[in-house]
């Protein structure tokens, strides 16, 4: 079975760098993307996958991507990460189907454990789904 996949959607690459360093100890594959269509294509592959979505100034595109992933690919967990405290945006992210929302005051240090937890779930269920 292929390595579990972490897709990182962000504007500046910092989160991807962080997760890439972590992935060495966990056996994940980390792919950083800049376009929603690429993100969807990667998550459609059928391997265990998690999307880490970092909010930036283009919130509308990011939230649209969250909505599309949670509706079209419900088995992929989306973790929304941000640096600015915004309860309204956090509530919308939950409503649109985020598996977890890490906006302040939630500590960013939780991210590795949250990602690992969802990948472990995906990996344990991957054998149950029919594959072509």
């Amino acid at each position: 079975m292929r390595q579990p996949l972490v897709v990182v959607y962000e504007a500046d690459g910092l989160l991807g760098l962080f997760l890439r360093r972590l992935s060495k100890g966990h056996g994940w594959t980390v792919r950083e993307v800049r376009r929603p269509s690429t993100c969807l294509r990667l998550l459609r592959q059928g391997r265990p996958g998690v999307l880490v979505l970092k909010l930036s100034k283009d919130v509308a595109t990011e939230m649209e991507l969250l909505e599309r992933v949670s509706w079209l690919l419900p088995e992929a967990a989306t973790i929304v990460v941000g640096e600015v405290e915004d309860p309204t945006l956090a509530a919308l992210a939950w409503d649109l189907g985020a598996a977890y929302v890490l906006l302040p005051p939630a500590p960013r240090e939780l991210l590795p454990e949250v990602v690992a937890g969802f990948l472990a779930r995906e990996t344990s269920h991957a054998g149950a789904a029919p594959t072509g």
Partner: protein
Amino acid sequence: MADLQGFRWQAYFQRAEEALFLLDRRGRILFVNPTWETLTGVPAWQARGLLVQRKKATPGADRTQVLAHLLYPPAEVRKGQAGRVRRPAPGGGAAGRWWDIEFSPLADDHHLTGVLGRIRPVAAVPASLPEPLLRLRQRLVHRFAIEELAGRSPFWSRVAHQVRLAGRAGIPVLLVGEPGTGKHWLARALHAVGERREGPFYALDCRCLPPQALTPILFSNSRGTLYLRDPARLPRDLQARLCERLGADEGPQVVAGCGSDPAGEIQSGRLLEELYHALAVVTISLPPLRERTDELPRLVEQFLERTNEDGDRRILGLTPEAWEVVRAYRWPGNLTELLAVLREARLRARGDHIGFSDLPAPLRLAVRLAQTGEAPPERPLNLDRILQEAERRLILLALRRARGNRSRAAEILGIWRPRLLRRMEALGLTVPSGKRLAAPGLELSEETPPLDQAE
């Protein structure tokens, strides 16, 4: 309508501050009050006689046609129960204006005689969100509408009724069913009709999230709805704390989803019995897909519509051969598996229908195996004959390489020459003395049948 005529209802309703309307038993508007006229922008003379419609108005339709759809009572109301819906106000959904519409059936001893409706405008969406985000929110409204369930069957009508009651009361609900049976969807539908729908919908997967991530949401003071997937996976101390919290009736409304054997979870010690009882104020059991095969056409249509959103071409349906497989398969993964299979098959389909060969191989195989009758008796395998034939071929190969020289052939086979001669005699292999066998590649005189056909 004798009961209505006997009461000075018109004078009463005319002065009401809420927007009120009255339908007759056929769904025609009999009366609207001035507040209704102001809210809808439609004068009473134009509204009277308008027939409410189940069918959604086409884009560009005039305001009365839009209203005719908005005021259509949901299924439970048509069957004599009170009901409430939230629908986007005409021209107002994207901007965050919604209508809560309450329907109260009016009946004599035997029949529905009319429906009284009340419209309450609500700002369902926080005004601080920009327009594109408000539109995203709007997509959710129709996606999790409980009215979709009511009217399908007596079972689903009861489920819809339970969901409405539990949503309005804000009490804990336990959803029981195999993975993939729609518990998450039902929790969202409950949130959409519940008293706490103004708050967010949190979905926490207790199998995946660490306690430090769960705690802030589990014990928040939010007014929304919290869906807990598999609460038996919570640490026991969190289960105990949650139990106390539920008893105090604080925070979000809790809806929990668990597998089809909660008693087993309690017995094994994974789920605290106190928490189970605290969650199961209302329990709704969802059947597996294999028990809902009559719904397959509708589900397949809905899921194909969903997967069509993710592509540039439309898949219209399944071929009859593909339908045979879909109906025969047991769907251990239930609705989740059905969606995944259709999504995968859609990518393979060449035309506008999913065919038999587009379905995943394990699914086709599973159905074939299930449909196969008694297996034919297996052919017996004679080990001695197979071993003899293999020995014969090896000896012939060695002789060919040694060009008939038996001493050399014995060396190739790693045995003594006398043993080779004994085995050749036992197997009926003879090579005339001095005769050299042909070079490799030319056929030997004896026919060599395949091993599995050796007699």
